[in-house]
């Protein structure tokens, strides 16, 4: 209980940059973990390696954001007289392994199940398209750390976007079976894309300060880029139908998740929960 409490950061405006940093970290970690579930199970050796590489890139991005978040948390606690002097330092590991479901701020899209190859590819495409615009914009942040992390990650995401776009086109414009599968994946995932663009309270604060990005500003470009790939894939009709359907609103960013995240954390955190502080 004590440990969880240490990692709980109050939802106050002055903590917005911490929440924002954790939000980026959680997105990268959870999607990276999902992709890593393919390792050893990819449809062919070459694509097994490709998706594992993407998983590694994302976990690497998560580490950078977690390290920066830990730094901010430790600094803010240092200035807080009510916090015990002898408390343990927050680290990237404690943030990843010792926070509970409700404290994770990843978007619902990233925690959705892998499903078949089409669903994994489409989830990656939607999110890479978003990260591409986000990191591009965030690399202009007044915050030097966020700017540097984003600039480095942008190169990786540019490749993820190229890889996933290529697969969406291949499947949409491939055989009847591959087209059927990408359309099913679209039905399952589309409703989770709206959350990407609805700003959480902490996003509004950091955007106003020029430290972060208000995601609603990314939406027109995202729509345009997704449409271009969908057109090439021959599945643009699905997109125009999907837009009229009901969307899931803001949830994950504020800590309200689908049932999937609990299972992910059970697997991800088991070792540290069962054997605290163990390492090898």
């Amino acid at each position, binding site marked *: 209980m004590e440990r969880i409490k240490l990692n709980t950061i109050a939802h106050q405006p002055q903590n917005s940059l911490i929440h924002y940093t954790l939000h980026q970290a959680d997105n990268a970690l959870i999607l990276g973990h999902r992709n890593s579930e393919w390792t050893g199970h990819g449809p062919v050796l070459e694509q097994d390696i490709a998706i594992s*590489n993407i998983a590694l890139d994302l976990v690497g991005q998560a580490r950078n954001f977690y390290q920066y978040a830990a730094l901010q948390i430790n600094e803010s606690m240092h200035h807080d007289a009510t916090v015990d002097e002898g408390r343990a330092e927050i680290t990237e590991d404690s943030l990843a392994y010792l926070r509970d479901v409700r404290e994770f701020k990843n978007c619902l899209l990233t925690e959705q199940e892998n499903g078949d190859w089409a669903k994994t590819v489409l989830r990656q495409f939607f999110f890479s398209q978003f990260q591409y615009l986000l990191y591009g914009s965030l690399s202009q942040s007044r915050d030097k750390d966020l700017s540097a992390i984003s600039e480095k990650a942008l190169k990786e995401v540019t*490749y993820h976007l190229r890889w996933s776009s290529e697969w969406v086109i291949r499947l949409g414009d491939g055989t009847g079976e591959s087209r059927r599968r990408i359309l099913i994946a679209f039905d399952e995932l589309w409703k989770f894309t709206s959350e990407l663009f609805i700003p959480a309270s902490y996003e509004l604060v950091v955007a106003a300060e020029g430290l972060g990005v208000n995601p609603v500003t990314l939406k027109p470009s995202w729509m345009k880029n997704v449409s271009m790939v969908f057109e090439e894939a021959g599945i643009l009709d699905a997109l125009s139908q999907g837009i009229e359907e009901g969307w899931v609103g803001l949830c994950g960013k504020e800590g309200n998740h689908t049932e999937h995240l609990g299972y992910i954390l059970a697997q991800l955190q088991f070792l540290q929960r069962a054997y605290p502080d163990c390492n090898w």
Partner: protein
Amino acid sequence: MPIIQEREKDGIGWPLWEVFIRSKQGLDHKHAGSLHAADAQMAMENARDVYTRRMEGVSIWVVESKYIHASNPDDASSLYDPANDKAYRHPTFYQLPDELKNM
């Protein structure tokens, strides 16, 4: 030839490609290995993911394996053995001036 044709049949029905990588220091593309891909673009991306993940290269060539014509191992004696006793083909009999450092 027969070896390459045989390899093309394995895997998942995607053709086999040979990958050549040029390293940062190297001037020439060297054979790195092979992989399966549906077309040239996928072969290029697969090559990037499979053969350059430890910073091996700055340039990639891919070519479908079926376009590579290999010599027959059975012909080895007639192709290569005759060169064995023709040492005069190596330019080792010249006196090099001392100023010449890299030769």
